[in-house]
Each structure stands twice: as structure tokens, then as C-alpha cells.
């Protein structure tokens, strides 16, 4: 079941300012936050997109300082999901 719902998806772009990029610890924070929501949440960097609910997935992106990342959420609680993830990013990783 793949239903195109591009128009409804919420997306936001961030710049990573944290010195060490998105390594194990911040990845865990992000993933744990994302896991609290119903929506499908994805993180994209360098033309690659992964599920933000998988630690391995997020770490596989190897996001360094200065990276432009996009976070998208799609689902019933997409706005809350994006807000929650934004909060973690602002607090620990960038803007």
C-alpha cells in the first residue's frame, strides 16, 4: 500500500552546528524522540533518506558539522512529531 501523500507531508531543514556531528548520543536522542510518534519520520542528508526511528539508519548517514539535513514527518501526528524532533535538534545539534 503506497499512497502518494506528498502534499500532506511536513518537512523542515536544519543546519548541524554541533562540533562532532550526529554521532551515537544525539542519534539516540533523536531516535527515541521519533519513536514517541505514530508518523513516519525520515531524516535526509546528501540525497539519502532513512527512517529516523532506527539508530543504525541515522548513524549510517554519518552527518558531520555544517551538514544541511531535512526531517520529514508523515502521519496522523506529523506536526507534533516534527515539533518534537525540532526541539531535540535545536537543543543538541543545530538550528
Amino acid at each position: 500500500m503506497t499512497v502518494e501523500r506528498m502534499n500532506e507531508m511536513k518537512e523542515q531543514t536544519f543546519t548541524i552546528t554541533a562540533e562532532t556531528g550526529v554521532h551515537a548520543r544525539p542519534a539516540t536522542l533523536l531516535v527515541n524522540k521519533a519513536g514517541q510518534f505514530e508518523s513516519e519520520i525520515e531524516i535526509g542528508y546528501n540525497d539519502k533518506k532513512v527512517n529516523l526511528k532506527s539508530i543504525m539508519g541515522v548513524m549510517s548517514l554519518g552527518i558531520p558539522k555544517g551538514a544541511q539535513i531535512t526531517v520529514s514527518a508523515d502521519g496522523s501526528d506529523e506536526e507534533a512529531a516534527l515539533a518534537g524532533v525540532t526541539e531535540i535538534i535545536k537543543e543538541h545539534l543545530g538550528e
Partner: protein
Amino acid sequence: MSYNELAKEIIELVGGKENVSSVSHCITRLRFHLKDEGKANTEALNNHDGVVTVRQSAGQYQVVIGNHVPNVYQAVVEEGGFEAQKQQNTEETEEKKGLFNKFVDIISNIFIPILPLLMATGIIKGFNSLFVALGWMETTSGTYQLLNAIGDGFFTFLPIFLGYTAMKKFGGTPFLGMAIAAALVHPSLAGIAEGETIKTLFSGTIFESPVQITFLGIPVILMSYTSSVVPIIFATFFASKVERKFQAIIPTVVKSFIVPFLTLLIIVPITFLVIGPIATWIAQSIGAGVSAIYDFAPIVAGIVIGGFWQVFVIFGVHWGLIPIYYNNLAVQGSDMLIAMTFAASFAQIGAVLGVWLTTKNKKLKRLSFPAFISGLFGVSEPAIYGITLPLKRPFIISCIASAVGGAIIAVTGAALYSAGPLGILKIPTFIHPEQGITTGFWGMLISIVVAFVLAFVLTLFFGGVNRKDKGVTVVDEENKDQTDENPVIAHATETAQAENIVSPLNGEIIPLAEVPDQVFASEAMGKGIGINPADGQVKSPVNGIITTIFNTKHAIGITSDQGAEILIHIGIDTVQLDGKHFTAHINQGDQIKVGDLLVEFDVDAIKKAGYPVITPIIVTNSNAYGDIELTASKQVNQGDLLLITKK
């Protein structure tokens, strides 16, 4: 307590079925979405004998049941009438898909895991007959016999492999599917089918069926199940249902052997009693039908038999025509019936070539070459099951092209004058033994060229090779690979299996809770264990793929072949070292085996820089497992058992 009683109580304790918006399950848990979690009696559930514990997270109310959760889920769905809900949501797509597409999807899906083998053995078969045709080998030679066994063994016992993949697809126990298939292809039964007839049923009709044996007095109409595809799909489909029923009613203590015991005893005889006759009668009807059409109008017969030949082959009913073929050869010295199917494999490879040249999908491209080569020698299974059928349209196109080819053969009167090899090697059998090259021979050449070119061109223009919505598993997986999600990660959680993870380091065991970093100690990343390394060498703990190696080289992510996601995080806060004192021996995406050297690090230098070298080893997808057992040793060496993931 039965599953139904347990299900009833669980539903009641989560606040009644009115409180449930939806329910799903993973490996050990029922995952409810409740309208109001406050209405659930968490304490009573926690104390319930049938429930391990309750977790509330991610907006889900998770009731941890254990390994038998699928049975409980089934019962919960029945008790609560939840499935009706679920079906409503999916009804639209199911309807759209239609029976044909569903069937094709099932066949394509169960072939995916064995495609590489199909290609390999197909090529071996093809070259083997090429070598004979070139006169390099005699069919009586040991070399031929052995190569033939290698190439043909897999094809002959194909149902056993499909028994595994089909049973898995239907949610049953894969080995049970294999056991059913093994019974179907057992050599002694194949021998009996060719042996003495004890009676003949329906004699004088087209359903005339020789019977060689009876089962508890019921006559068994045997067919050849070797190399067949469809019978085992039906058998495993029903076996999975029967198995599930038994799972639910048989007490847990004796379940492990009673369930397969009864399932086998029911499904195998029923398959023999039901599938055998049906397939036999369909095959005979096809044989009689096609002969009748041929007498009436050869060109129509050519179109029908050419067009449907590959479909007959998939259903295993093509052999209804084989006796007619042998009879024709024996009586008339020539056969025009099977001759009309000759274009079919050329149409297949024409379509494969079309896919090969147009697909943007690397995996399909890789599969196309061996499929083409073996198809050239008449072994068309790799082309059908690996390429054209999953894509659907190229398969239909190749049937159309083959129908045109069949018509040409029928019109020009091409005939086979001896039984022989397949594919291009069969061409000489169209030469008339006395008259040599006849009009029919040219007709046959035109037919295969037309079928090939037509299938190729139509596939180029109408094959829909790069369509987005084709719902092809082969293609979908690969597309993910290329673009967004890494399939290894995406599917790991669903496919996670029990496995042993060995120690990547030499050193002293530190319980995770004592690792001096809250993120690890709290199990926020998942369950695992810490090691205080004695030396600076990290070797792979599993066979798998390097999912991530940080540019700072201090953390290695591995996805094992069995689906475990393992993070080896060398030292604490060592991200700050920015790669200093670390040497990586692998790159992201590398395939690794247990014991491969991954990273070296300088223990003393890292300590001197002020960072602990304690290395947490975490299974980051711990949620996919029922339990993860930790080693009891205080000291481990590389290769010692460290963690066991359990379903």
C-alpha cells in the same frame, strides 16, 4: 487457558473492544492503539499469567506476550472482530490488485530468494547441452551425468525449495513446507507413477486416469510433482492454515512435534488426492482441446498453444501435451504440436533483452544476463520467474509474441522430427531426415526471429520496465537501495532472527549499567554489554554489512545477515578525538565475516588523552527481539560467545 480465553481477558483489560482503535503485533508483543489508555487496567494485565509485562510507549499500549504472540493476536482479532476493521482499510487495494496480480506476486515473491540458484543451475544446464551438441561430451559420459545432476538437481527438486519460501510467505513454518514438498517429489512415488496400473478411472473419457495406488482405499491419481511450481503453493497455503489451527488448540507442552505431525498427515494425502487429479484432468483437457483445435484450424491451435505455453508450464499442466508429442513422433515420425511452442523461449529472451537494455534497476540488469543465456538454451525458468513474470507486462508481451510465433509455425507446417535438446540447440531437429531443409524449417526460423524481435520491441515500448507502481518486490527493494532507504536497515527489524554474536574484543566484561555514560547505561540505545579492552583490535562479531563507520572511526555500526543491528562504540566520548588514535580497515557498505579486522585503536594513547576505553557493544534494534542473553564470563577473547539474540 486457551488463546481465545486469554484474548477475551486481554481485550477486557485494555478497556474493552470499544477502546481499541487498532491492534498489531511484533515478535513478542501485542501493540494496541487505545482510544484512552487510562481505561486499561495495566496492573491487572501485568499480574496476568498469560502476560509478561506491559509497556506504554510511542503512543502504543504494548502487551508483551512472548513467542506465541501470533496465536494470541489471531485470537484477539477474532474475539474483538478487529480484522473486519483492518480489512476495510485494505479492501480497496486488494480489490484493485485482482486475482491474477495477487497470484503473480505470490509466485514472484517465493522465487526471489532462490533466483541466484535458478540462474546458476539454468546456465549449467544450458552449457551442458551445448557441450553435447558440439560433440565435446557424450550423454553417457560421467562428466555429463555429473554436470547434469548439478544443473538438473535443483530443477527436479524445485518444489522443496519453494516449499520453504512459500510456507514462509504464508506465515507457516518453512521447514514444514519443505517436508511436504519432499514427500511430493519422493523418488519412490515417481517410480510408481510409471509403474503398473491397478485400475483405470473414467475410461473412455478425456478424464481417463490410470491409477497405480490407493490411499486407505481411495484411488490416488499420481502426477509428476518434480519441477512443479503451483502444487506446492496450494499445499503450503492450506498447510499454513492447518498449522495455525493446530497451534491454537494443541497444548504447548506437546505442540512442537504434534503440530507438524498432524499437519503433514493431513496435508500430504490431501494434496495427492486433490491436486493430482485436478492437474491431471486439466492437462488432459488441454491436450485433447488443442488436438481438436489443430484438426479444425492449425493456425488457431498455433496461436493458443504458442500463447499459453508458458502459462501451462507455470501450472505444470503442459505435460498433457507431451504424450501426444511422443506419440506423434513414434507414429508419424514428426510432431507439429510441440513444434508450435518452439517460439516461446525465444519470445522470453526477447523480452529479457528488452528489460536488460531499458531497466534502471541494477539488480534486474544483473539477473538479465544469466536469464538470457540460459533462455537461449531453452531453460526459460530464470527468465520467467526472475524477470518477465515479476514485471508482469513483459510476460504478457512474450506470450503474445509466442502466439504469433506459434501461428507462423502452424501456417508453414514446421515440424519436429526427433526429440532433442531445447532452445537454439533444438533447431536441427526441425530438419527433415530425408528432404533436408524444407519450407517448414524456414518457417520455424522466421517464427523464432519474429517472436524474439516482437517481444524485444514491444518490451522496449510497452514493457513498463521502469514503471513506479508495478508492485514488484525485486524492483521495489532495489529502488530503495538506490534512492532513499537502506533496505538492510529498513527490513532488519521485521526479519530479525535468533543469532549468536561473538566478542569483537579481548578484555574484561563490564555490565552495561556500569558503563560510565548514561546513554548506554540506561539502555536507551538498546541492550548490550561493555568490554574493557585489553588491546586495540576490533574484529567482526557477525557476518554482515558495515552500515556505518563514523569519520571519527570510533563507532562501527553493523547489520548482521540475520538482521541484528550492532553498534560497537570504542571508548566513551571518544568522538572528541576526531579519529586520532583510530585506524579503520573497512568502509561503509563492506561485506564482513566473523573475525575480519574492522578497526585498530591505541588503547594507551586514548587513555592518556583522558577518555575511558570501555567499549559498549549494543544491539540497537533490541526491540525486535524477545530477549538478548549476555555472556556470564568475566573475561572474553575475540570469537567467544558474547550475546545471544532470541526471538
